[in-house]
């Protein structure tokens, strides 16, 4: 963990230089649309109040985490069953490709029209957005299990369920992790969109509200916080995946 934090901080020097440049160029900016980082930072303490944390940050956190968990777990489970069965795979591939091809952003209004607005809807929106990359990667991982590995399962007299959960699913770890990582970004994106579209709470709502009331520095604060959250979530992901499936990285000689 210690070396992990150190490596993470070490990688921060490029963004720090970029922000320094921004500060130097815009240090005396009076243009309200392009505040200097120092102005945004000064504004931060007015924005981040207990009330704000409670309404915006907490709501966004719940939306993202619940949506991500529901979407990824169901994606892995449904994907596993579809991937293991050729007929199901042939039936569902065109449908999943069709729905997947519709940008997640475009699906949000549809889901809102069906479920209304509220926390549950936002969670459902994120879950559905996360579901599709998870379905695709899991189906692919399960469908491409090494024939030799499957033969071994047959020789061990494993039935279909045992083969799926004890052999094919762990063998698809690489694809599933790829899907889970991509789903982090998609989840944040859809979380923000669902909050922007008329919910009134959450980080996305805060950003759109600040922008429409000309609180441009506030808007920038919101955007920065989103960026930081994305960064932290991605790092957290990289940190966790090596603890959940250490064998995967070590057996492939990755660190």
């Amino acid at each position, binding site marked *: 963990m210690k070396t992990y934090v150190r490596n993470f901080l070490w990688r921060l020097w490029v963004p720090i230089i970029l922000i320094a440049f921004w500060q130097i160029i815009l240090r005396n900016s009076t243009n309200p649309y392009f505040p200097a980082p120092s102005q945004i930072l000064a504004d931060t303490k007015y924005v981040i109040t207990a009330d704000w944390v409670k309404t915006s940050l907490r709501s966004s956190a719940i939306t993202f985490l619940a949506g991500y968990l529901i979407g990824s777990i169901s994606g892995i489970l449904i994907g596993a069953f579809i991937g293991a069965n050729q007929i199901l795979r042939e039936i569902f591939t065109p449908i999943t490709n069709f729905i997947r091809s519709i940008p997640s952003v475009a699906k949000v209004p549809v889901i809102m029209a069906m479920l209304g607005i509220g926390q549950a809807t936002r969670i459902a929106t994120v879950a559905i957005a996360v579901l599709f990359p998870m379905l695709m990667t899991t189906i692919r991982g399960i469908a491409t299990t*090494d024939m*030799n*590995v499957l*033969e*071994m399962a*047959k*020789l*061990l*007299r*494993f*039935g279909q369920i*045992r083969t799926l959960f*004890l*052999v094919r699913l*762990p*063998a698809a*770890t690489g694809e599933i992790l790829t899907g889970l990582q991509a789903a982090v970004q998609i989840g944040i994106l859809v979380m923000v969109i669902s909050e922007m579209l008329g919910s009134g709470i959450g980080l996305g709502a805060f950003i759109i509200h600040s922008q429409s009331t000309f609180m441009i520095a506030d808007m920038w604060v919101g955007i920065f916080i989103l960026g930081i959250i994305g960064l932290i979530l991605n790092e957290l992901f990289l940190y966790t995946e090596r603890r959940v*499936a250490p*064998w*995967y990285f*070590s*057996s492939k000689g990755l660190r």
Partner: protein
Amino acid sequence: MKRIPERGFAISVRKVSKTFDNENQVLSDISFEVASGEVLAICGLSGVGKSTLLRIISGLIAPTSGGVRINKSLVTEPSDQMGFVTQDYSRSLFPWLTVGKNVALPFKGHNISKAERNLRVQEALASVGLEGKSGAYPWQLSGGMQQRVAIARALIMKPRLLILDEPFASVDAYVRLELEDLVADLVEKNQVTTIIVTHDIDEAIYLADRVIALSNSPATVTMELAIKLKRPRVQMATRSDPKFLKLRDTLYKGLRG
């Protein structure tokens, strides 16, 4: 040492042919018997269909015609009395499981207490010289050690039939000799009927009581050779025995067709 014949399975391969996709005939009219407790080597050049034949015997695929009987009953699926070792240990051992859990895989679906399972895993690992490696992952071990793990797994259920598909083709020459002796020793101790497929003439003669040569395309049995070298066999001594050299010469000619 004389084997006790009752424990192992007797195998009868009757007129087995296999054609893939209705046109690509790999095996043609193959028949042979394996007595209980016997070690049979199937020897043939690469690509002759040895592995296909093993897959049929083990019940993984069905023959196009003919059939295999193990103790008089027709093979339709892999038997739970059969241990199997393949060439490619990196794919037959699961990298997400420790060595101990890999060896314990055949217990899945059997009602065996955790204590007994652990005990038998320890025994099996000890029998292949891997005491204390239970908690390691397969990819942390050398190729030879991984193949030892695969052998331990194949024998943990005390099978009556052991099938080895080019088991030593992926390890280096010295380890190969060690593993040959390990397998010969374990086969003797377990009194298990054994079928080993190899393209190595010397290995076939060194391990087997009888060698079958497969050649031509589609493959047929071109030679059956009884190996009457005394046991236990010793690597360098046995291999330089004039009888060994003569068998070697005969088998080589048999494989050439």
